[in-house]
């Protein structure tokens, strides 16, 4: 009689659990939960690159080789789920002169020009995503080195004693089919965009990443109450699936700085 009672109780506990697991999905071989879109994969290089092509001529036969520029600035504004954005942040009035000065001398003041780390959000969307059950791993290629970010998704809070860094301390969560990354605890020596967009160590970046068809859309919102008059939602970027595997970035050796003869400005990222 007692055994039969325990069987009934055990079934009452286990059966709803099994049903819930079927509703919320299971774990794939990679460890990613199928309850959410799988963002895993290799994605196209998303940093603005020169729109040049290479003309190759062999024995009179000409071939034009182009790079994939699908992820350039502003090319994803019509993608599904994109939030309203502006191309420039709004700084508090007392910082406008500093922004202008940095921008006017961008080729001498932008850390990225001198092999500096772009940080978040300037690094843009990741080149590779590994989606696991309790964490998301972002891998990047960049001339300053090849950074990575390990983003817990198990509900834990930000690390209390993490040191400030260029890529910050990140935690992630799902809002529907959108993966949302909350990054904070940054050093203050990066820019959040070209044109002198400096920030303080109060920087917080919210990145939203989701699928639009087979493509990936990435959009970031920058918060910095110390210097910005309002949060800045950046234009989105769209990256396509890529078959180009990640490759270690060659070392960065800056030698042009001493040859600059004027302050000509140059579009970056």
């Amino acid at each position, binding site marked *: 009689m007692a055994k039969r009672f325990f069987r009934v109780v055990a079934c009452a506990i286990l059966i709803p659990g099994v049903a819930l697991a079927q509703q919320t999905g299971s774990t794939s071989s990679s460890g990613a939960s199928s309850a959410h879109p799988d963002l895993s994969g290799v994605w196209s290089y998303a940093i603005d690159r*020169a729109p*040049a092509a*290479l*003309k190759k001529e062999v*024995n009179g036969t000409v071939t034009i080789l182009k*790079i994939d520029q699908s992820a350039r600035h502003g090319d994803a504004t019509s993608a599904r789920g994109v939030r309203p954005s502006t191309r420039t942040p709004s700084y508090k009035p007392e910082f406008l002169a500093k922004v202008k000065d940095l921008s006017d001398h961008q080729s001498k003041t932008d850390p990225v020009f001198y092999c500096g780390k772009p940080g978040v959000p300037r690094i843009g969307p990741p080149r590779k995503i590994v989606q696991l059950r309790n964490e998301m791993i972002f891998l990047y*290629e960049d001339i300053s080195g090849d950074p990575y970010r390990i983003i817990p998704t198990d509900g834990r809070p930000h690390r209390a004693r993490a040191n400030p860094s260029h890529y910050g301390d990140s935690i992630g969560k799902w809002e529907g089919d959108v993966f949302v990354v909350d990054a904070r605890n940054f050093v203050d020596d990066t820019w959040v965009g070209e044109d002198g967009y400096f920030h303080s160590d109060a920087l917080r970046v919210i990145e939203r990443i989701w699928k639009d068809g087979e493509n990936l859309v990435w959009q970031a919102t920058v918060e910095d109450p110390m210097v910005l008059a309002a949060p800045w939602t950046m234009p989105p970027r769209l990256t396509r699936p890529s078959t180009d595997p990640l490759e270690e970035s060659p070392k*960065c*050796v800056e030698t042009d700085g001493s040859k600059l003869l004027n302050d*000509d400005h140059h579009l970056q990222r």
Partner: protein
Amino acid sequence: MRHKVLAVCSMAFPLFAMASLQAHHSPSAIFDMGKRVAVTGTLIRIDWINPHIVIAMEARTDGGKVDHWTFESNPPSWYRGVGLARADFAKAVGQAVTVEAVRARDGTLFGYMQKITFPDGTSLELVNGADPK
């Protein structure tokens, strides 16, 4: 081996500004966009580094002097994006190549490569990606 300066209207090279640098200085801050040089010489070295690949050449002047030229070009990731690797340049190390470039404003033997022609006649040239010709 020799080099020569081609007198060219600056308007002939709008491509350079578009074919320029991934994360670096404005090219016009360093290079005279209207001064294109063609240098024929021995390819000495290819440095596959960021933010620009570097090509080192030795070219003998008409007076017999050996000039040591350095050219930079687009970043390694850009060349990878168009399907080229260091080996596509390094195969010609020790051989005669011709490089066409825009020259540094400071007058040094330094330029930004626009075109390279290898000993077998194969050439690689930066062109406008929006309207390649």
